[in-house]
């Protein structure tokens, strides 16, 4: 997994890419602008961005300063494939 999904809670309007970079101390190349900022649970104010695995330590340090929340954090980005027709 070269990249990880960062899910975080945010109040107010959807944050911009620059704001997310600032919030989580990310360098420009560490946040995927094509992926954008996806509202994964708009009702709960949860958003997801795609960050480089190399930024995981810095992002984890920022997350450690926030109140504990199981919905916030760096999540896996596993491979997916069609489930058929079955292969031998």
């Amino acid at each position, binding site marked *: 997994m070269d990249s990880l999904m960062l899910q975080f809670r945010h109040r107010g309007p959807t944050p911009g890419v620059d704001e997310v970079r600032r919030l989580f101390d990310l360098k420009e190349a560490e946040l995927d602008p094509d992926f954008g900022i996806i509202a994964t649970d708009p009702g709960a104010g949860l958003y997801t961005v795609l960050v480089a695995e190399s930024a995981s330590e810095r992002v984890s340090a920022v997350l450690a300063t926030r109140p504990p929340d199981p919905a916030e954090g*760096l999540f896996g980005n596993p491979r997916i494939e069609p489930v058929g027709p079955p292969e031998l």
Partner: protein
Amino acid sequence: MAKVNVIVELRHQPSLAAAAFSTAPDAAKTLDPSSVPKIAGVSFDPTFAPAALPGLVERTAETVPYVSGQRFDLSLEPESATYIVRATVDENKVEQLAAHAAVVGVFADVEIQPTPICPGSPPLGNAADVERLLCTSALRAKGLDGTGVLLAIVDTGINLAHLAARGRPITLDAARSWVPGPSMTPGAAPVGHGTMCAFDASLAAPKATFLDIQLLRSTAGGPSPMSGVLSDAVRAYGHLCNVMLAPRRPGELRSLVVNNSWGMFHPSWDFPVGHPGNYSDNPNHPFNRIVAALEAAGADILFAAGNCGPTCPDGRCQGVTANAIYGANGHPAVLTIGGVDTTKAIVGYSTRGPGRLSRNKPDLCGFTHFQGSGVYAADGGTSAATPVVAGVVAAVRTRMPHNPGNPAVSPAAVRTLMRSTCQDLGAAGFDFDYGFGVVNGCEVARRFRVLWPFDRCQRYPWLCRLDRFERLDRPIPLPEPLDLGAEAAVGAGSPEDLDFETIVERSYAAGFEDGRKAAPGATSELSAGKKGCGCSGS
């Protein structure tokens, strides 16, 4: 005393030969009780007619063929034949039966089962068989054909030309489709897995409006050309949330069915269970959250159970067949679909429950491994079973459209309908093989009443009386449909407990009437172009 099933080989008797060589149909043949030994504790099956085993005639030195060296010939004489019959015998009577003068031998009559469908098996049945099994003609007779329903195929992309060439042209909404890269066009993907899914969904929902969500053509890629990564699915679902939540004009499509014939194959693809970033067991993973959000917005979401069944798993499962319904494929807010062949036998590779996010998975099974789209030798895997069921869900939504705020037509209500109409196979009720059973379009159709256009003046005569005093140049507005929200709160513990007949009847009261109550000639009046107060007799 334990009883055993045996095959008994008997010596020639004229009555046995007469039955065995009779030209009567097999169903009409029976066993003559006088032709079998009478021993206490031995019960011959009278419905099993004797079957002849030809005798062997030893060849002489002159007649042994030089090349083959075969030393016996089959005899065509009835007298040299022996005869097979079937019996149930007390265990301690087997030797006595075998020693009887009329008996050549006694053999075990072991239970046999059909070989399950496995990877590489040839197709069993075709698309017409699946349509027959789904009762698509009954569904269409009730107006259940996908009209007015969006059906998203989240996959490798759809090829419209291939579907048209196979006699299944579909309607595509390109504007609301989604592609991960700039050079990709909805409806023009290479012929592949997504095209197969669209074909199979169109069996029950030929009039649905398809969305081509080309998730597995991601540029992110993986070890195979058709693989992607889960973050692409988050993006695709973000798009579907926007589709679902976008403002609509009156009459625009509101129902969305989402087919997902993809998933993870092995736990090694993910963070381990217990890791905070894990996907397969973690309801807080971004993809699991957005699946829940899309369902809350009103979409009906279906996921394939997977191809990691214990009998003959897909090679990519690497032998892991337990707890193999990973992540959103077993989400509580989705319908998880296993696979059965066209004889309703579960296919050997269909992943069994429980699911990781929700224990009672799969929910139900759909048909798979049949000759259909022509993309592959067989439309196989739970990949094919899922769109077969998705088509039925889209058909249901034709007459049970999503209506925000009305729990009677919520995705949960549709899931309950699909589960409760299943043909229960396997253990009674829910089981981890079939879930609640096999999708049953006949029963789904039975839950809906026949559609009859009705005469508004017949139904609401007081409205038409106005016509005597003033001339209206517009149709008189129909009464508002009943709001079922209050009734749901009072009459049932949860939205899933509502009486479905009542829901459908009331939801459609404004537009249609039960055929039993409709006035004779109502259809012809409408078809003659009369509107509003233009009915006769008012």
